[in-house]
């Protein structure tokens, strides 16, 4: 009887145990052992569950804490400059005039341009790896290469950009007849585009692989070509996943600092074209934080961080709305 009631799941109830105790007085030790094990299992379950809840709470507290710190630290600047901070066009630490507009513009311009450049590549890679060649050494090699792109530290991209990409862009700019700075919005968007490809590509590949083969086979059996299957079955089925990947890429592009700083030209003049030098919020913070020698200056830089935080939140919220709309259809 005792042998038969093995503890195969946690549904063992107290009555089982007491039955066991009554039924076999001979082996109370075994029963006690089993009860002990049972309690230990329950305890483990509880501890594990609590640990999970705790980790979740810590994450929430962290994010709220960061937001609060940013708000508190940027209060002096909010008080001194007001809402004008957001659309002020001058950033002049000497006269304590701070306007975030050039950097806000720079951040959005570089990120969306980078996204526009990278999306065709990442979607193409996702379809290639997810649909055309899911197995084999060439796709494996491509997959690993794409993932490696995400693992390379950003300062290396910056260095490569400055040494290789900028001279190429400069000669290109000379040919099309704009000021041949080499560095600027365009160069940083190119660098960013390379850096963010893996995020959309990896996620895209996994969602494309998850398309039920029944759907695809049905389409083929109706006489659809491969292109038609991709267009009418795979893309509609996976669009929320693809979009989520693109959103992930955008998030990365918005916050990227080091590589951008090295190739954007770092000027607080509002860029007149995409070939002009500019600056982004993240790179201004990285550049000026250590030597910010006045309380308002420091606070204005932290407010820049707050604005960046909010921009990221807003873009994520819009993205979430779009994804849920896609999914509901």
């Amino acid at each position, binding site marked *: 009887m005792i042998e038969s009631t093995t503890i195969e799941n946690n549904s063992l109830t107290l009555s089982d145990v007491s039955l066991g105790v009554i039924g076999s007085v001979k082996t109370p030790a075994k029963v006690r052992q089993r009860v002990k094990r049972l309690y230990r299992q329950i305890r483990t379950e509880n501890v594990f569950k609590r640990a999970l809840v705790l980790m979740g709470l810590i994450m929430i507290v962290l994010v709220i804490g960061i937001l609060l710190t940013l708000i508190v630290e940027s209060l002096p600047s909010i008080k001194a400059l007001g809402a004008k901070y957001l659309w002020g066009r001058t950033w002049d630490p000497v006269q304590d005039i701070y306007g975030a507009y050039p950097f806000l513009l720079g951040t959005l311009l570089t990120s969306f341009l980078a996204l526009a450049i990278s999306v065709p590549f990442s979607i193409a890679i996702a379809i290639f790896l997810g649909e055309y060649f899911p197995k084999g050494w060439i796709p494996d090699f491509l997959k690993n290469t794409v993932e490696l792109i995400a693992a390379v530290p950003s300062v290396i991209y910056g260095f490569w950009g400055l040494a290789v990409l900028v001279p190429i862009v*400069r000669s290109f700019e000379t040919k099309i007849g704009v000021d041949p700075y080499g560095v600027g919005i365009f160069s940083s968007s190119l660098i960013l585009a390379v850096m963010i490809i893996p995020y959309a590509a990896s996620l895209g590949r996994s969602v494309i692989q998850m398309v039920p083969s029944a759907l695809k086979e049905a389409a083929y059996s109706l006489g659809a070509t491969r292109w038609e299957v991709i267009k009418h079955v795979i893309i509609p089925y996976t669009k929320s996943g693809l979009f989520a990947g693109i959103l992930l890429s955008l998030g990365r592009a918005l916050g990227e600092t080091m590589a951008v700083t090295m190739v954007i030209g770092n000027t607080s003049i509002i860029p007149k074209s995409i070939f002009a030098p500019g600056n982004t919020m993240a790179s201004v913070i990285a550049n000026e934080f250590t030597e910010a020698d006045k309380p308002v200056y420091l606070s204005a830089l932290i407010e820049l961080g707050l604005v960046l935080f909010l921009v990221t939140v807003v873009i994520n919220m819009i993205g979430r709305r779009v994804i849920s709309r896609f999914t509901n259809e």
Partner: protein
Amino acid sequence: MNFLNLKSTLAIGILIASVSFTSCGNGGASADKKADSTSSAGNDDALIGAGSSFDNPLFSKLFSEYNKTNGLKVNYQSVGSGAGISQLTNKTVDFGASDAPMNGKQDSAVSAPVLHIPVTAGAVVLSYNLPDVKDTLKLNPSVLAEMFLGKITKWDDAKIAAINKGVKLPSTTIVIAHRSDGSGTSNIFTTYLSKVSDDWSKTVGKGSSVNWPVGLGGKGNEGVAGTIKQTPGAIGYIELAYAIQNNMAYAKVQNKAGNFITPSIASVTAAANVTIPADSKISLTNTEAADGYPISGFSWVLIYKEQKYSDRSSDRATKLLKLLSWVIHDGQQFSGALNYAPLSPAAVTTGDAILKSATFDGKPILQ
């Protein structure tokens, strides 16, 4: 082994000496107080400093030399002048280091008077990329200011040609390169431009970060140098030491006396050989010295005048003052090899007087 023994004997000797000094200074009544201070201030054989990244290579050398002879460890964090000052303000370091004297707002943020001790001098040079120009370019203050204001835009401008007679200047566009990160180098350079050009001081002003009217920003000396090297027709400012170490071409600049001076360690030391005010807070830019390079400046170590604060021991204060005294005297021999300008005699004298004014509990520390 013998050497080690000697070292530890020395350390013990210093310890005994300093303990006796402490008890002399405070009297016997402060025994428990002393115990307090050692526990909170941590290890008294290690001082902590933070600030200027310009000073960092020099300080590394100096402090390691000092450690060899005196066994005192100095932990210097190269975090930037501004951050160094705020760490001193928060009393988390024994000394700060800055390429610019503390400004009014920083002064009002600290709770007690701070002493500025000049420790070395540096210069900012104008490096350029004109592959076809073989002679050293000459610049005068007004041309320099107009270039950085974006008013002179071509290299063959008549104003540049007038001071570079016989040099064939190309018609390329001038590309200005400046620092994108806040830095003491920018501060020295913009202070100089503010002094020599009314236009500059009205529209841009001076500071470690300013609103540059034109040009490309590069991060650090290497960022500016990279922009200059890559862009034909570029001109930008970098530290003298960096320019020498990287064999970059740099211009002669006309000083106040009217001489065109090649930046060098000697001409920077010469720039500092002027009357220095008692608090040493002087900008050497646009120096009166006839053979001095005009775009140079001191770098200072900052300490509290009253060294008795937040449970510091008198031993710690003495060690700090002795270290600084060594830095401005014997330590200066190490500057030249690292392309830092040694202090001028006038600066050493002033530094000495300032160090002697430091007190512990109202009593002078150095005799």
